[in-house]
């Protein structure tokens, strides 16, 4: 259950929105809220994750503070989103990582760095750790392939289990029709096209006015992430099926994809941090914004360390950079189920529910147009 005061506040603010409806052209949240007068925790979780935080409603609302109605839907729903991430985190005990995401990520990265450093020196020897390595299997002189693979599988498997567990309980609580193929497809389109970062045509927050910056930057991060993932997959194919042992040449599929992905993630994440820093500080929730910053910072550092590792892979800095890159990856993977990373899971499920709900054309009503 979400915190009761948040549910009451959602009911109060949407009571005003439902009597006004001026924002219904911006996104899915307002049409979705229109039929609701009483809100349960599931309704709040649904609306909160349906919101893409474009903040155009805050810009357009005549009832934002200092108006006594004090309507601030983006802040309200961001706070609710941060609560849903914690509420549906699995296992719950680890959800407290969310409370201090920056410190959690930094601590995990630091501990992972220390542990990996000790392991690397223990397995390769201090002299090898401080020397340049070239030729096939250069990375495996620091960490064996088996160790790297088992570490990656362990963290990935745990992350997937944790995220799926959260998704299942979210879908159950909010009533997402997960077997509706049409709704799944429409939601996939809306998610991939970031339809709701368009603000109904007005754009998304950027220094107090709408623009397409955030949608573009988010695209960099998302497609960069997929490119990096594809790079890893291509590397596995080259090594295990084609017998080519890394490091791969610069003009190989894994390296090209990795560079494109890394640059895109770095540019997108740094751009999003800059965008958030210069945007209005009012329509935000502190809890959500620290999750945003922590996730973007870890992503940017993973990308940066990966690019540096590539650039300096023939130098004596390689082993230390490899350890740093792996430690940051550990921080990214370990915190993924407990941070901003999960946003796409709950948002996609909410889009599925909305697609199913809005499939039959809703009855037109009249009378709201006159003042």
């Amino acid at each position: 259950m979400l915190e009761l005061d948040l549910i009451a506040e959602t009911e109060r603010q949407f009571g005003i929105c439902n009597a006004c409806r001026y924002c219904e052209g911006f996104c899915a949240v307002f049409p979705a809220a229109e039929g609701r007068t009483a809100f349960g925790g599931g309704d709040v979780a649904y609306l909160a994750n349906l919101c893409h935080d474009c903040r155009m409603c805050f810009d357009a609302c005549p009832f934002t503070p200092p108006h006594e109605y004090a309507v601030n839907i983006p802040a309200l729903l961001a706070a609710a989103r941060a609560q849903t991430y914690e509420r549906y985190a699995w296992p719950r005990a680890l959800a407290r990582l969310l409370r201090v995401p920056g410190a959690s990520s930094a601590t995990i990265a630091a501990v992972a760095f220390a542990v990996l450093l000790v392991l690397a020196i223990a397995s390769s020897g201090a002299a090898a750790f401080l020397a340049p390595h070239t030729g096939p299997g250069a990375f495996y002189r620091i960490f064996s392939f088996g160790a790297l693979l088992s570490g990656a599988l362990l963290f990935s498997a745990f992350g997937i289990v944790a995220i799926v567990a959260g998704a299942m309980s979210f879908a159950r609580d909010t009533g997402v029709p997960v077997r509706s193929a049409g709704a799944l497809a429409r939601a996939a389109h809306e998610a991939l096209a970031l339809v709701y970062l368009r603000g109904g045509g007005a754009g998304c927050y950027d220094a107090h006015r709408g623009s397409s910056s955030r949608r573009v930057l988010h695209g960099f991060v998302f497609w960069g992430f997929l490119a990096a993932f594809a790079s890893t997959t291509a590397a596995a194919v080259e090594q295990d099926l084609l017998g080519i042992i890394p490091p791969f040449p610069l003009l190989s599929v894994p390296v090209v994809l990795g560079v494109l992905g890394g640059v895109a993630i770095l540019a997108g994440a740094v751009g999003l941090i800059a965008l958030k820093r210069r945007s209005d500080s009012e329509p935000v929730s502190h809890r959500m914004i620290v999750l945003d910053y922590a996730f973007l910072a870890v992503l940017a550092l993973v990308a940066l360390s990966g690019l540096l590792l590539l650039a300096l892979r023939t130098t004596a800095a390689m082993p230390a950079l490899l350890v740093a890159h792996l430690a940051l990856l550990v921080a990214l993977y370990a915190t993924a189920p407990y941070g901003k990373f999960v946003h796409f899971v709950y948002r996609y499920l909410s889009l599925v529910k909305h697609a199913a709900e809005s499939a039959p054309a809703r009855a037109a009503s009249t009378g709201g147009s006159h003042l």
Partner: protein
Amino acid sequence: MVPDVIVVGGGNAALTAAISARRAGAEVLLLERAPERMRGGNTRHTRDIRIAHDAPLDAAPGAYAVDEFFEDLLRVTGGETDRALAEIALRESAGVPAWMEAQGVRWQPALTGTLHLSRTNLFFLGGGKHVVNTYYDTAIRLGVRVRYDATVTALLAGGDRVVEGVMLDGGERIAGRAVVVAAGGFEANVGWLGEYWGEAAERFVIRGTPYNTGLALRALYDAGAKRVGDPRGFHSTACDARAPRFDGGIVTRIDSIPFGIVVNASGKRFYDEGEELWPKRYAIWGKLIAEQPGQTAAAIFDAQVAGRFIPSAFPPLRADSIGELATLLELDAAAVTATVAEYNAAIVPGGTFDPAVLDGCATRGLVPPKSHWALPIDTPPLFGYRLRAGITFTYLGVEVGTDARVVDEGGTPFENLYAAGECMAGNILSRGYLAGFGLTIGTVFGRIAGRNAARHARA
């Protein structure tokens, strides 16, 4: 630097005038009385604009010919309109959508939400405040200087029917070659309303900005401008008595009235709640309540019709019996129970209730009658709202010519003083209400005033 054009006001008409003057090459200073966060006058609360069009528009299907628009205007005003000005407003409205789009305004996309697109009115994406923000962004980008918290209290005379600037409340004098006053009506000035309504004015709700106290309108009169319009006139609706005194906006309007009955402070009905379709009648209920003892009333309905109308921001009062509900509504339980019983007994049986049409479900022998949608109020839970008259805008203004120049008491136009928006809309809409028409007048005459002021100042 002395600006070519000073625009007094900060809502639709003022911004339209400022942008138009700037685009015509003038140095423009816009003086908005409100702080930045509350800028935009009553435009903040608007949602749509009435536009004549001969062919379907992206945001408005069908056609709305100037002639039909004019008939609508004659109907609501009883023919009391300045025909020359009305014709300009209606004819030039056709060019307004393209102009608005050029300033960055977007329309509500078709087929989204619950809103069915209107043939006569174009709906703004995000409503009026989003338009206001877009206009400020555009104006500032074009080089219009904007000052917030700048309250104009007087026009500086510079000779016969010539102004040479304005004075702010702190005594600061600002010179300008032409002045456009577009600062709304005086509905937020309770003392001024009291001159015509006595102490009843204390009990009105003001639905719009608290900054429309009519100081600029008063300054126009002090400078010798000719009055136009009924000083007692205002557009108003039935509002929830829990509405804030000012600025409550659209969300406190009560739309339950045709679905039930309305009683006054004595627990008696006083007007036919089912006289006409609600969109044609809701605008009379503010005035009806304003004329009741104590300027108060209560709407009552039951569970049969709950959820059939657009909700308001605050949930209705709720009880299991009429007597209990009356007590919650601070009314005499016996009187209200008797009124409801009398109403229920007068309903002609056998009708088919249909809120979309004049359904003929009526009372017989009841005074006043309820002509349509008369269902017995007998299904608990019972619901009620305490009502107040909520004023949207006043009609009193100044006379202007077709070039938007203000006319003095002798009937001669000022040389360099213009008016646009609510402070001159009474020339055209002398009474009654047409949804979205205030913005039509404000935009058409804002553009005219801005262009002409720029031309005069730079001549």
